[in-house]
């Protein structure tokens, strides 16, 4: 069975639940969500109004779940959703939505629009209307273990490198460890300093941890393309590894959608609660800080700002934690406008970064971030999401901006106090 319109519509019908029915019932077409979407604000094109991106799903709701809609459908008076229509909507659902959820906070009637886009993507992918780039990434994730094609050998090489640099052992497949660290593809491939950073931090804090050779990849393209089946497969690998190693906690990496996939969607994807807890690396670091187990002994005088990753902050609720950590090491920390819950997305979340077709639009959308950065005179942008970092670097380069981009965990590790037997950097 391959993808088809019929399969897509059936998926729409199955995905529509109480919240979605309620959201469509409540929408009064006020257009306020437009202002909250960076694809609209940066293009002023009305088709990027968030609620408009859901039009096919809305029609299915109307025809399947409302009194008049059913009546009209029976009478043959309603316009069925067509394949052409879904094809037309594909760029709206995938290219111009990063699932950042800013619209969900702006809607006066309380519609969780991003909740709907996520569900709509289930039907889009089932009907065959998912972007090629995202399909490829998902395929690689399933078949090769990572959307970027990194594998256990890549990881072993990076670990070796980190061990050499830190003089510490990176625990692999340690059964009975308290924490199991999960990484994102980008961290393994590009931002590999993270491995050394967490090794040193955990060493200092005395955290019992491990990395699983069969469950180290946290990136979840299944969530982004909108397939629960594929997302479940990817999450399942981590769950199996964690269960094999009998860990108490799984640490989500600095990767927004990995966090969402692992922390909030995972148990629902596999259909049962986890026997372990999921904690975000930043959440854990802040916890260690408050327990006095995380100590720094130097600061960075450069003017730093923090880019809030949507999935971690707005959709994940960690507003204070990264700031608590930043205040330890960045005395010249400065906030961008709209910090915290109202942050603006980097423009590449929700699978947009894996979708080459969306590149020109994404570049335009970055103007929002550029404007935010232009308002303040920070020289370094700290973030806690490897995808955000890539998108920021991309945008900065395109706009010839001089800012540096660093990951929060690495930044903390750099200023780690040398009060234990751990080696100074």
């Amino acid at each position, binding site marked *: 069975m391959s993808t088809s319109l019929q399969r897509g519509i059936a998926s729409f019908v199955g995905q*529509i*639940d*109480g*919240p979605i*029915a*309620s*959201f469509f*019932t*409540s*929408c*009064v*077409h*006020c*257009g*306020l969500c*437009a*202002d*909250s979407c960076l694809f*609209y*604000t940066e293009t*002023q094109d*009305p*088709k990027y*109004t968030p*609620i*408009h991106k859901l039009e096919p799903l809305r029609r299915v709701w109307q025809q399947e*779940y*409302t*009194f*008049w809609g059913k009546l009209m459908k029976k009478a043959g008076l309603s316009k069925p959703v067509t394949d052409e229509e879904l094809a037309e909507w594909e760029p709206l659902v995938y290219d111009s939505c990063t699932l950042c959820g800013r619209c*969900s*906070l*702006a*809607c*006066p*009637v*309380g*519609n*969780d629009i991003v*909740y709907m886009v996520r569900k709509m993507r289930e039907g889009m992918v089932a009907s065959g209307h998912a972007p090629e780039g995202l399909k490829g990434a998902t395929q690689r994730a399933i078949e090769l273990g990572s959307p970027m094609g990194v594998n256990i050998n890549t990881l072993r090489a990076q670990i070796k490198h980190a061990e050499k640099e830190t003089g510490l052992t990176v625990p692999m497949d340690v059964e009975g460890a308290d924490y199991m660290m999960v990484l994102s593809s980008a961290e393994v491939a590009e931002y590999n300093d993270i491995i050394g950073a967490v090794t040193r931090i955990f060493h200092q804090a005395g955290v019992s941890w491990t990395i699983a050779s069969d469950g180290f990849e946290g990136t979840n393209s299944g969530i982004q393309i909108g397939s629960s089946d594929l997302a479940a497969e990817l999450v399942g690998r981590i769950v199996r590894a964690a269960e094999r190693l009998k860990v108490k906690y799984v640490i989500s990496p600095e990767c927004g959608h990995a966090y969402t996939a692992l*922390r*909030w*969607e*995972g*148990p*629902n994807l596999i*259909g*049962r*609660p*986890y026997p372990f*807890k*999921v904690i975000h690396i930043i959440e854990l670091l802040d916890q260690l800080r408050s327990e006095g187990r995380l100590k720094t002994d130097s600061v960075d005088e450069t003017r730093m700002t923090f880019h809030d990753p949507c999935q971690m902050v*707005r*959709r*994940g*609720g960690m*507003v204070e934690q990264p700031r608590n950590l930043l205040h330890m090491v960045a005395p010249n920390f400065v906030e961008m406008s*709209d910090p915290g*819950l*109202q942050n603006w997305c980097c423009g590449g979340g929700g699978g947009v970064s894996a979708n080459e077709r969306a590149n020109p639009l994404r570049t335009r959308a970055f103007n929002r971030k550029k404007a935010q950065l232009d308002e303040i005179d920070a020289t370094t942008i700290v973030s806690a999401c490897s995808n955000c970092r890539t998108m920021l670097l991309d945008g900065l380069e395109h706009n010839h901006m001089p800012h540096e981009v660093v990951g929060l965990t690495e930044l903390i590790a750099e200023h780690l106090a040398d009060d234990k037997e751990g080696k100074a950097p």
Partner: protein
Amino acid sequence: MDAQELLIWVRGAGLQIAAAVFVLGMSYRMLHLLLIGRKKSLAEARGSEWAGGLRTMWQRSFVLPKLSPRGRFTVVAGYLFHLGFFVTLFFLSQHIALFRAVFGFGWPALPRGVIDIAAVLSLGAMVALLAHRLVDPVKRLLSDYQDYLTWALSFLPLLTGFMLLREIAFEYVTLLTLHIASVELLLIAAPFTKLAHMFSTFISRWYNGAVMGFKGIRT
């Protein structure tokens, strides 16, 4: 049927029909929204769904995100319209007499001057919102026939009510009949159109807030 009989009809049988359709339709629709249900999340909660849901139900009425001029216009005019509508609906002495007759209890009315101002502001805001809907690219794209229909259905009771208090253009009997009839149209249409947002908004906000609350996000 003369004017008096028509008035008796709209005050009697007409109102019964409208009330029946409204209550039946609304209770059906709202309960249905809750009964379609959603899957209980198997993830470990970081906060309370109920706290988040209830907070958002209330708080979303007051949280104003940063807005563009067009967004600001929508918000200001939207608030004026809704506020004016509620003030006239719930605080005009004649309406309170109606609620007292139906529910058995009432509350103090606001002075007529306040009601008048509220009604005028509400009417003005509605006209402005309609004009904006016609010229703003976003709203024009989103709008379908229902947006204009529900606008008219909401505008007419306000307009006829305002005219009634001053006996503008028609006789009292005619205006009262028109006013009540326009309200009945509104009541009958409400469960089947986006006017249902008068209740579903709170369900939507609850669902939205519940998701946030579950994750421990303090909005």
